[in-house]
């Protein structure tokens, strides 16, 4: 059980780095902060790999699967005998896997940013925030109880807000950061209410007690219901809303595309690989509870995931900003993961969806971080985010080109790359449980291949643009992370996830289902071929195609007007019919009452100040008159 105490340092190092670089960074040369952060992150990474190595392969393969280990836990707040909030570290397959994912990507991003952010104003601040983010994300995944998770969940939200608004002099970045914060905060309200219901019903925050199979703590839950829906369904749905906000599930997806205003490494770290999967992680963490206590909520999760993946994939086809294409692609892939959890069963083969979701989370983190870092490299070279400013870049950016191609092939599900394996597992799981969702995902697989290669061909092939100065390959410090992640994207698929990360922590055997694999590869290749035909050579065919779709194309290009709908609802309805009357009430009734008191006092005193004449005899007269009046009234009333 013991022997994992050093995991404390995985999370403490980023915290210390945040404090050190945040407080002292401005006193040093910028590069010192960068190097300190990177070295600290490297140490965390090494420790995480060590943890994963000894946890997964350390020999302790019991027949009953992997054990949950709590190497460290302290009581943080003791309100009453039953209401105790603890802080601790929980090691089980998914948290160890997340440790590896987070520290790997974070280290790569730290390294990459040394080159990408070089010479930027606020370099130290950037590194301090990166460390803060990594600290909070690590704290989130190793949480031993749902309340600790909630605390770090909010910290993650704050650091995301800070990093999206890193260029705080750019109005669009500021509004994007506010949007991200408000939307996720709004969703977190649901999460908090869900936690409260859950802990009210079960009397505990601990994951260990909540997710224990066959536990009796839900005994009292069956009798509770609200509006005909059981308390647990409410709790799990509300918790899922929190997860949906963080993971940008429809209809709370609107913040993620805008979050691309942040620096590109931030998009890679937070909005592709780690923070946005927090929602998926949350659902996976609560999976036994959701599956056994709230099957209706699980249905919702599956359909929301499926719809989001289709919706985002369609929008991704029409976008021109490469980071936005990637953002919508992230949405789509997150939808995949949610869907896999939604269709999963519990235990053994039934838990294929759960395993596939975690598997895809892992591989997606690698290739999506690679795509974003590659996009950063392109933007670094071209100084534009827009595809129509790019073309023929393969000659100038050879390393970026190759690694980007690998990532595109991976996400498109080309055989023997990691994305193929994980996506295939998801499709198999969907096929077993829900044919409609399987069909949706099947189409999305084709769309994914198409929009990724549309991006790839228009950036690296197509016509040569006139660049102001010849684009040049990024420095080594930026290309090393690209190469590392490319290798990871290729080989991550060979990690035997079905033995390591499963719903009941017991491994099971799985085999390739060719009935699913072959068609999914074919539709992927079909998507690639379509992109090849349309975008390999510069032509006006795509424009004509776009025109032939008419209003549908315009709607898709404008993301189906969801931003406008939200604006309409908030500005026109909520502001006009709720906020304005409340503001009016506050300003006129509440404030008016207070102001009125002051005003009356002032007016009255103005009127009666003439009574203070300075004439001694007036005072004496008033005094005597008053005394007499009092005396007479006392005689009158009391006698």
């Amino acid at each position, binding site marked *: 059980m013991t022997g994992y105490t050093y995991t404390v340092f995985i999370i403490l190092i980023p915290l210390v780095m945040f404090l050190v670089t945040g407080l002292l960074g401005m006193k040093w040369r910028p590069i010192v902060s960068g190097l300190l952060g990177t070295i600290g992150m490297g140490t965390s990474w090494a420790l995480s790999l060590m943890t994963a190595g000894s946890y997964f392969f350390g020999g302790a393969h019991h027949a009953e699967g992997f054990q949950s280990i709590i190497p460290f836990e302290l009581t943080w707040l003791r309100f009453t005998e039953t209401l105790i909030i603890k802080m601790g570290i929980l090691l089980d397959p998914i948290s160890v896997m997340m440790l590896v994912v987070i520290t790997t990507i974070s280290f790569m991003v730290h390294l990459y940013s040394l080159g990408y952010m070089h010479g930027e104003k606020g370099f130290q601040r950037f590194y301090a925030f990166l460390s803060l983010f990594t600290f909070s994300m690590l704290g989130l995944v190793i949480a031993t109880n749902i309340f600790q998770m909630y605390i770090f969940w909010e910290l993650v939200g704050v650091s995301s807000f800070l990093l999206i608004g890193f260029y705080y002099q750019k109005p669009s970045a500021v509004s994007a950061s506010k949007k991200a914060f408000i939307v996720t905060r709004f969703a977190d309200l649901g999460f908090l209410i869900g936690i409260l219901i859950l802990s009210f019903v079960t009397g505990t925050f601990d994951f260990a007690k909540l997710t224990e199979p066959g536990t009796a703590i839900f005994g009292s839950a069956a009798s509770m219901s609200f509006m005909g829906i059981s308390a647990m369904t409410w709790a799990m749905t509300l918790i899922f809303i929190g997860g949906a906000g963080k993971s940008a599930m429809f209809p709370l997806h609107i913040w993620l595309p805008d979050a691309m205003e942040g620096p590109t490494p931030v998009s890679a770290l937070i909005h592709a690989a780690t923070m946005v999967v927090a929602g998926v992680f949350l659902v996976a963490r609560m999976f036994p509870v959701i599956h056994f206590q709230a099957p209706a909520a699980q249905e919702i999760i599956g359909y929301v995931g499926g719809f989001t993946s289709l919706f985002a994939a369609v929008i991704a086809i029409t976008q021109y900003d490469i980071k936005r294409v990637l953002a919508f692609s992230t949405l789509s892939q997150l939808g995949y993961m949610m869907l896999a959890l939604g269709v999963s069963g519990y235990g053994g083969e039934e838990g294929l969806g759960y395993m596939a979701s975690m598997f895809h989370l892992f591989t997606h983190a690698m290739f999506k971080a690679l795509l974003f870092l590659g996009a950063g490299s392109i933007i670094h070279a071209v100084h534009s985010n827009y595809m129509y400013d790019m073309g023929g870049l393969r000659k100038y950016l050879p390393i970026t080109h190759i690694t980007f191609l690998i990532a595109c092939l991976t996400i498109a599900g080309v055989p023997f790359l990691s994305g193929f394996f994980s996506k295939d597992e998801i499709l198999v799981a969907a096929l077993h449980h829900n044919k409609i969702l399987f069909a949706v995902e099947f189409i999305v697989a084709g769309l994914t291949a198409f929009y990724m290669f549309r991006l790839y061909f228009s950036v690296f092939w197509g016509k040569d643009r006139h660049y102001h100065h010849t684009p040049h390959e990024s420095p080594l410090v930026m290309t090393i992370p690209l190469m590392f992640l490319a290798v990871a994207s290729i080989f991550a698929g060979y990690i035997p996830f079905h033995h390591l990360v499963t719903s009941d922590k017991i491994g099971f055997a799985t085999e390739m289902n060719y009935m699913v694999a072959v068609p999914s590869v074919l539709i992927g290749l079909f998507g690639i071929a379509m992109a090849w035909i349309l975008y390999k050579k510069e032509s006006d065919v795509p424009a004509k195609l776009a025109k032939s779709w008419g209003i549908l194309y315009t709607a898709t290009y404008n993301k189906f007007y969801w931003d406008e709908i939200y604006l309409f609802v908030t500005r026109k309805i909520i502001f006009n019919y709720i906020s304005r009357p409340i503001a009016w009430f506050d300003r006129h009734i509440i404030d008016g009452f207070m102001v009125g008191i002051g005003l009356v006092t002032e007016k009255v005193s103005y009127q009666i*100040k003439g009574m*203070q*004449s*300075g004439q001694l*005899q007036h005072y*004496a007269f008033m005094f*005597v008159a008053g005394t007499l009046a009092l005396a007479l009234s006392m005689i009158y009333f009391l006698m």
Partner: protein
Amino acid sequence: MIQGIPLEHFLIVSTIMFFLGVCGFIIRRNLITMLMAIELILNSVNINFVVFNRYLYPDQLQGQFFSLFIVGIAAAEASVAIALIINIYRKLQNIDVENVNELKF
């Protein structure tokens, strides 16, 4: 000495003195006259003290001693007041109370 004179007579006298004093204080403009009016008020109270002492508790002396105190304090008060009045006279060349009205809003 006071055998046969009922209590009410003393009280009537003292009440008349008191209200004469109050009226004098309010009506007269001359500060010295006002001071005299205050002395009237004080002495009306003195009469009350002595009379009540004599009629209600003939074997005790608190009321009489109290009136002696009041006489003493009235003397001190009169000296302070006259000092003030002299200063006012030096400043304003008269002792009309209506001219002493600097202290107001």
